[in-house]
């Protein structure tokens, strides 16, 4: 089952299942939807399902068991290395809800460590309308 995808005009993508046949549910933590050209050809939401430029596997971060680990690992890193901010490269390759869940979990972790000004910014190369969904 897919998460909610958004188009560059900020609207919800309603035909994602038709454009990307899910072929049932899959057990892997990784996206297994193949590969796409990375720059400017395909919509951002579709690129959230594929590798970036034939490298960098995507994770199915909309699955709770995957997201639990992403948050846990981030929290471990904050505790081990004591950093105060995280910059997310290619932030719009993460789904909108996935980013919100992850960032909220990281802030919770940071706050519990006494970091009440933890800063999370992300690279948004697309238009502001899409970026505004993440902010």
């Amino acid at each position, binding site marked *: 089952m897919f998460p909610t995808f958004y188009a560059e005009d900020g609207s919800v993508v309603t035909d994602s299942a038709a454009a990307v*046949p899910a072929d049932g549910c899959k057990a892997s933590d990784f996206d297994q939807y*193949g590969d796409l050209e990375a720059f400017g050809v395909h919509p951002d939401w579709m690129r959230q399902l*594929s590798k970036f430029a034939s490298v960098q596997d995507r994770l199915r971060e909309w699955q709770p068991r995957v997201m639990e680990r992403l948050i846990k690992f981030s929290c471990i890193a904050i505790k081990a290395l004591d950093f105060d901010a995280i910059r997310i490269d290619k932030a719009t390759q993460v789904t909108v809800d996935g980013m*919100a869940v992850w960032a909220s979990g990281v802030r919770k972790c940071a706050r519990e460590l006494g970091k009440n000004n933890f800063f999370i910014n*992300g690279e948004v190369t697309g238009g502001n309308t899409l970026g505004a969904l993440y902010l």
Partner: protein
Amino acid sequence: MKLLVETRSVHSTCESAKVKFWESRISPTFFSGRGRTPDQRPDFTTAVNLTANDDKYFLRKAPLNGLDSVAFHYSVYRSFQRFLGLDGNLQVGYDIPVNFVDAWNTLFVQNDFINAFTGEFDPRHLYGMSNFDILRWDGLVNGTQRSTLGTFIGSLLLPGAPLVSFPPCLAFELRTDMMGLCSFTTAKSKASICSITLLLTTSSGMSLGTDRTCINADFSTVVRLWLPPKLGSATDVTTSVQKPFSLSLSQKSLLDVTMTGTRWTTSTPPLIFGDSSSTSLTYARNTEL
């Protein structure tokens, strides 16, 4: 247009991370960073008085806060490119206007700028002219001046968090007398090794002039004291430390890449040749760029 679908699929139980699943697992914070769709935009007057309790202007319920801000704001940078005379396809769809005043007014109503911890209005987009993976303006005609003008707009006109990399920062300070804006200035006062004179020569022995620098005590920053000579059409350059001092190779590389790399119109550091026992390092221009 369809993605390639893996033929070998593994069927198992379906899981879906419904937002509600997470709402019970993440403790509430201030209601902010919650996204905004086009039909959730307030008008300007409303935006001025917006609080986190105005749910209808946000995509997500608290406490699902997303990003605090955009790192290296590409939308504004695209405007910088246009404003400072670059040509080409510099626009993407559904973006902010090129005019900086209209751009800010648009960001103001379209973005959620409320701080996730304090609940205060706190715009922190990082506007900048310099970033690791963009071209270095110093390499263009009047590039330093263009870069400085863009930095001026990104730092003093647009509300946000200025993003300034080292060399443009120094140039900005020198031209605007804004000493103290750059964090490097603080480092200058702490510099334990100063007045390092570098001699720049090509492999054919031609002198390209001298440069001076300071290095912070912990080598966290390198402070350049004045703008260096142009490298021109040189295809390689050797920087020699006039008065030898003890540096590791990595420290020397940091120093030299900062000194030479920024003057060359490459977006990647020049190739490095040298060893830790030498007081000089040689770079070759990256011919692919």
